[in-house]
């Protein structure tokens, strides 16, 4: 028996060594890259159930093509490409639309469409694809109607909340596309707005209005699913983008190959393996050893650890990611502005930047991302000042009534815990006792979006998808009664509401920016949200990979890349 055990053990060790060291690794061919992320696309239908998941958006933007997109501008000092944000025609370039005109009298945009564009399945692009895309959006037949929502935000005529009304007959009527999106000829489409709205062109750049290949979509419709949601979500999303889906194993791997017929030229990176690797430390190790060429969503500490590693580059951009402290206006003690201001003065921003983000962040100057059009530096700023914080608390009559819970998303513990701990220590210095309260994402979402009862929260996931200070204001700060979309701290300011009503339809850029600056001053005076830091969106990648550019959804467009491996 003993000899048998020894023999079995030795054989197992030898076999394991032989198999482990056997050189079966399939080397990446030239132009092929492996990208690792914490997840891969869960679905590809932007009106489907997984459109809110960032990695699903990455899949969509690489397979689909928009009508227009932002022009590029020179890269930042770290080599990350940037976009030219704004509302003027000069900020945009035609993609599937070659050119466009706007008639201010009828609020109508006329798009001349590009000819000779081919999709992955060989379908040719024309006006029917555009009309189909908007008709599908208006049908609100998907799980989460993002296409309708964006069209509504852009004031496209008749894309009103009536489509979601309780009266089914009326809603069904409202869901039919009328003349608001009209085919003029095979390569001309007119889209009518109900009112002037500067967000029209920016909204067309968002993943949620990518153009479908109608021909392939309709081939895959069924009697119960006339808009092919099932097909788009689970099989493929046919469009005219730079990549074609090659293989997709949900929860594991998403492989694309370049669309050789892509109208802007076949992609330089010809094949991308986008693989799910949940452990960030494994993603880090893989890029260090050259097994992956690009990795996403490491912790700040991990990014810092490979900043000087051989063969690896870390670069990023201050884009639209921010860290905020939310204080609920309906919950004492934060219903008192002096307490909110005391918290703002108590925080040690330098330590948060140094210890939480390893220097890859800057102190926020306002609640709107500084890269967005309409952002202005508010005159109301809060730098660390412990004495001032104590004075304000005294003036507010603040009394310790036990620990205040500081909530944050537990799945982000590795990033947020050191910062929450720092905040707890900072507030203890002025006499505010805090207890950390990590909550699962779904519970946090429920408390934030539905119940709106989080008393005190640390939040780094609010990112307005519309690149505009006005949109961010509507999304987060306009009161619910005046149409605010997601006013999670129950903030209500008649001044902000009134100013936003003017901003909404203001045609003159200068006046609009002045009004937006006034809004931002008021938000900072009230501390609607306490902006803590703007943090870098970062990536770690092979030093042979170039061309990375930042887009507002933080999804890398693989077509931007070149790989000299």
């Amino acid at each position, binding site marked *: *028996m003993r000899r048998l*055990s020894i023999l*079995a053990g030795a054989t*197992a060790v030898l076999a394991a060594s032989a*198999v*482990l*060291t056997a050189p*079966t*690794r*399939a*080397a*990446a*061919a030239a132009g092929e890259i*492996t990208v690792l992320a914490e997840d891969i696309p*869960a*679905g590809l239908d932007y009106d*489907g*159930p*997984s459109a*809110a*998941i960032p990695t699903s958006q990455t899949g969509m933007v690489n397979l689909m093509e928009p009508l227009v997109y932002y022009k590029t501008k020179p890269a930042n000092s770290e080599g990350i490409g940037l976009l030219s944000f704004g509302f003027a025609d000069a900020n945009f370039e035609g993609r599937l639309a070659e050119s466009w005109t706007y008639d201010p009298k009828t609020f109508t945009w006329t798009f001349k469409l590009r000819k000779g564009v081919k999709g992955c399945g060989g379908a040719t692009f024309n006006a029917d694809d555009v009309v189909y895309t908007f008709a599908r959006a208006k049908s*609100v037949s998907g*799980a*989460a*109607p*993002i296409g*309708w*929502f964006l069209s509504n935000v852009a004031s496209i005529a008749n894309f009103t909340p009536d489509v*979601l009304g309780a009266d089914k007959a009326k809603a069904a009527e409202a869901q039919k596309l009328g003349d608001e999106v009209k085919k003029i000829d095979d390569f001309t489409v007119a889209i009518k707005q109900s009112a002037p709205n500067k967000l029209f062109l920016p909204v067309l750049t968002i993943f949620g209005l990518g153009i479908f290949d109608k021909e392939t979509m309709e081939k895959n419709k069924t009697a119960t699913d006339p808009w092919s949601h099932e097909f788009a*979500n*689970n099989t493929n999303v046919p469009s005219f983008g730079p990549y074609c889906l090659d*293989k997709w*194993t*949900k*929860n594991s*791997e998403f492989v694309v190959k370049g669309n050789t017929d892509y109208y802007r030229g076949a992609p330089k990176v010809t094949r991308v393996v986008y*693989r*799910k690797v949940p*452990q960030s*430390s*494994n993603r880090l*190790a*893989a890029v260090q*050893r050259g*097994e*992956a060429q690009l990795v996403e969503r490491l912790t700040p500490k991990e990014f810092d650890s490979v900043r000087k590693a051989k063969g690896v580059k870390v670069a990023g951009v201050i884009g639209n990611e921010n860290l905020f402290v939310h204080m609920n206006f309906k919950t004492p003690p934060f219903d008192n502005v002096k307490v909110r201001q005391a918290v703002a003065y108590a925080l040690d921003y330098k330590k948060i930047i140094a210890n939480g983000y390893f220097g890859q962040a800057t102190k926020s100057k306002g609640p709107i991302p500084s890269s967005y059009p309409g952002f202005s530096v508010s005159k109301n700023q809060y730098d660390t000042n412990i004495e001032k914080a104590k004075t304000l608390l005294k003036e507010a009559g603040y009394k310790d009534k036990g620990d205040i819970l500081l909530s944050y998303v537990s*799945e982000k513990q590795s990033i947020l815990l050191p910062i929450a701990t720092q905040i707890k220590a900072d507030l203890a210095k002025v006499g505010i006792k805090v207890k950390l309260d990590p909550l699962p*994402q*779904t*519970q946090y*979402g*429920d408390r*934030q*979006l*539905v119940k709106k009862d989080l008393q005190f929260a640390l939040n780094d996931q*609010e990112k*307005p*998808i519309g690149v505009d200070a006005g949109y961010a204001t509507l*999304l987060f700060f306009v009161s619910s009664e005046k149409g605010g979309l*997601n006013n999670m701290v129950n903030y209500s300011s008649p001044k902000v509401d009134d100013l936003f009503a003017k901003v909404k339809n203001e045609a003159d850029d200068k006046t609009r920016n002045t009004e937006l600056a006034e809004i931002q001053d008021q938000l900072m005076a009230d501390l609607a949200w306490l902006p803590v830091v703007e943090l870098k969106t970062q990536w770690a990648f092979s030093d042979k990979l170039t061309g990375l550019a930042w887009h507002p959804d933080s999804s890398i467009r693989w077509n931007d890349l070149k790989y000299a491996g």
Partner: protein
Amino acid sequence: MTRFVARRLVIAVVQVAAITIAVFLLIRALPADPVATRVGFNASPDVYRKAKADLGLDRSTLSQLGTYLGGSGTERGLLAGNLGTSWASGSTVASEIGDALPITLELISLSFLLAGAIAIPLGMRTARRPGKALDKAVFGYGLFAGAAPEFWWGLMLVFVFYFKLGWAPAPLGRLSPQLQAPTQRTGAILIDSLLAGRLDAFWDGLRHLILPVVTLAFVLSGPIMKMVRQSMTRVLGSDFVLYAQAAGLPPRQVSRSTLRAAFGPVLTLTSILYGFMLGGAVLVESVFSLGGLGQYSVKSVLEFNYPSIQGVVLVITVLSLVIYLVLDVLLALLDPRARHR
């Protein structure tokens, strides 16, 4: 034996029904919101309301239970074999579990085989020679293996064998990223590779499985070894063994009889561990990016993806009951007295 199995099956059906309904009701009582995750934090209240209605969450819990069990319109319910559609991906829960389950079964089955190959001979030997050097070493090994969670051992193995020595493949899944996977038939990468005649995929899959299997086997072999040693010690002191030895039976024959008598508790422990590992291998699956059932369960829970949670619990329940049924049958075969208890 037939009556014995039939009785067990009836009890299993009642257990599955009770667990299914309990899980359905309990997850709806939790303070979380699956709709917010689905529509995203940029969504308007109108979009939110529509998504909530589409999921049926605006209806009473009993009405939702009725739909889950009996279906609605053209969609079949659980009683017709439909586990539902994932709220996170839109795929059917059955297909998602069908992808994840074979990965876990392959991982844990190989781990148990390796753990058994190590633990049973060592446990038997140490029982026969208590207090000797090997016994002390095995005791130390048991403590060592159980002293840290399996994901820690996994990370250590990755650090040493992949990152430092470069012997092991990157922990990026079941195959190297640029290697084409074989056609999926069973979902188990080794079997599918062989069925497809893809030896390159077989070796690559095997290389990717070695570290996770060794990690799990390392942790699992500790308790199995202890149980083998304990049972063998007890049986070795029993009258029939002493008599067999006194009668001069060859040691191999005595060992065989001893092992059969000692095997019951070992089998019970192994079966319980196997059932537990169906969902409990999650950390190893996560460390090695394997994407098995454990990872799928955790993801479903974090997303509050009710149909997926219900599906996973149901499948694990059924599999556990099957394992216990097989265990009962094996125990009854090993010890006929068990049939009459």
